[in-house]
């Protein structure tokens, strides 16, 4: 187990290194850098001024040097400066992380609390009208773009209360903070809960066909105990994987949801940074996302061994 953890951790670092190279190269393929954009906006181009700005930002150096400077900085905890605001990148990114993290946590809680029980119900009542309804609802959850659902929710708020839930840095009460986070979280979490539900259902159906479930039934165990104790316990393993993956993929949905609800989180910030060709910001933000995803996968792998005694790594 110990050797496996070490090897798995090493692989994680290799993956992150690879991503950093991919992102760095991709961003340099982009036509136009920040200097171009600033000058486009200004409508006036003096080549000398432009060259001076590029030199100041280090854009005139060879790519390898630029890359080394970035990674070297990261190692020392120096994320560089934002081109746009000229503040240290860490000061721009750090305050936005908790906002997005809270949204993701609420959304994930929603999706597990709603998705898993409904998936069990759907499996237990397979091929009943209830099952059909739940399946269609979950499929429509997977079909709606998160930003559209967000807009529909805003529309609902306008027609019901005449106003929309507005994000504020300092919510007046716990209650208003809860509303502030749970409304966007519901918009982004609907898809995840639909996914959880489908997965729990198919996983449950598979487990319920197993011999030991038949045995439990034939020895006269109550139906409730079979479904919720014997079956669910074994059906939950693939669901755990998805919780891990979803936690990371929620970031994708949060990009559009934060845009719709006008929330100053880290996901929306990525798109703004891309628009400004703010390389240090984009690089660091993408690396941050990659670290979150890779760490989540690592944790899920470890959880596997903890939850399922049949899985033993390293032997």
């Amino acid at each position: 187990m110990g050797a496996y953890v070490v090897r798995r951790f090493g692989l994680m670092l290799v993956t992150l290194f690879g991503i950093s190279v991919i992102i760095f190269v991709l961003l340099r393929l982009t036509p136009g850098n920040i200097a171009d954009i600033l000058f486009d906006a200004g409508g006036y181009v003096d080549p000398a001024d432009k060259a001076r700005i590029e030199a100041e930002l280090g854009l005139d150096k060879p790519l390898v040097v630029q890359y080394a400077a970035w990674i070297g900085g990261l190692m020392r905890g120096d994320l560089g400066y934002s081109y746009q605001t000229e503040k240290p990148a860490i000061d721009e990114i750090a305050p936005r992380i908790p906002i997005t993290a809270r949204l993701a946590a609420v959304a994930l809680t929603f999706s597990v609390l709603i998705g898993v029980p409904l998936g069990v119900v759907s499996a237990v009542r397979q091929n009943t009208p209830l099952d059909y309804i739940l399946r269609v609802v979950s499929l429509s959850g997977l079909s709606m773009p998160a930003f559209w659902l967000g807009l529909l929710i805003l529309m609902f708020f306008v027609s019901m209360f005449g106003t929309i839930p507005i994000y504020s840095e300092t919510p007046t009460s716990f209650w208003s903070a809860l509303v502030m986070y749970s409304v966007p979280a519901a918009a982004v979490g609907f898809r995840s809960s639909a996914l959880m539900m489908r997965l729990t259902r198919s996983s449950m159906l598979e487990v319920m066909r197993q011999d030991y479930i038949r045995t439990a039934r034939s020895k006269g165990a109550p139906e409730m105990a079979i479904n919720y104790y014997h079956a669910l316990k074994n059906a939950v393993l693939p669901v755990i994987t998805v919780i891990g993956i979803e936690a990371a993929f929620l970031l994708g949905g949060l990009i559009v949801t934060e845009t719709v609800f006008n929330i100053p989180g880290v996901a929306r910030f990525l798109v703004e940074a891309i628009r400004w060709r703010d390389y240090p910001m984009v690089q660091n933000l993408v690396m941050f996302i990659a670290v979150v995803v890779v760490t989540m996968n690592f944790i899920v792998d470890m959880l596997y061994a903890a939850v399922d005694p049949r899985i033993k790594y390293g032997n």
Partner: protein
Amino acid sequence: MSTADFSAELAAAGANVKSRWGSLRFFVRRYPLGSIGAVIMTLFVFAAIFAPFITVYDPLSTNAAISLARPSAQHWLGCDFMGRDVYSRIIYGARISLAVSVGSMLLGSSIGVTLGLLSGYLLGWFDLVTQRVLEMMQSLPLLVMAIIMAAALGPSLHNTIFAIAIPLVPYVARVIRANTLSLREQPFVEAAKAIGMSERRIALRHVLPNTLAPLIVLATAQLGSTILTESSLSFLGLGVPEPHPSWGRMLSESAAEYVRTAPWLVIFPGAAISFVVFGTNLLGDALRDLLDPRQRS
């Protein structure tokens, strides 16, 4: 893809496949939801192809006099702030959606199949390197990857297709690789080897056709996600540029402010996206059940 492709599968499932209509009838009876999905997809393709014949107004012509007109007998779904007919724009938008989704699905799948087949067949260092690189690509959410690609390439129809296709590659390649790995151990591959068939011919004539079923399942499932990704990119202003009437783009123009003033600009384009993706999901579920017996419930 024709219904004839499924005849072997259908026969195995006990269907009457003597005629083309027989297999179609079987599909409808066995998968009512999947058939609804197929109808939705047909409508979608129909709207894209015959757009000029089923619309009255030009999707691009502006008219300040009818800016933000409510849905009415003349303009069924209302008009946007430039006075463009929303119904026309949605119908023509089907062309963009269809082009981007089918284009990126085909591109992503063909690269993915090639890599997966090579990886599972050659093994060795090629497999090792490919798997690592694909893993890296999968460490970023699909939308994040697509956003970066789209931003790097610049906004255009072709670049949008490319930006969505590349992030799909790892998902296809991994399924095809796993399938190739199990296929190469099969007796029929061994038999082909025994009669002295070249590796290349075995890979192309015997292994590749057998990966078709999982590929169809995967491709249908992807079709929906490519449409959603395109709409998200366009919503963020990183996808298909103006004046193309892309569904996601229509929502970005109308986003927050029209929630109060012109709800029809918000409701209809989003409904179009959801409707079509719902169709692909319904059809995809039925196809998975039909072609992948292991997952049959």
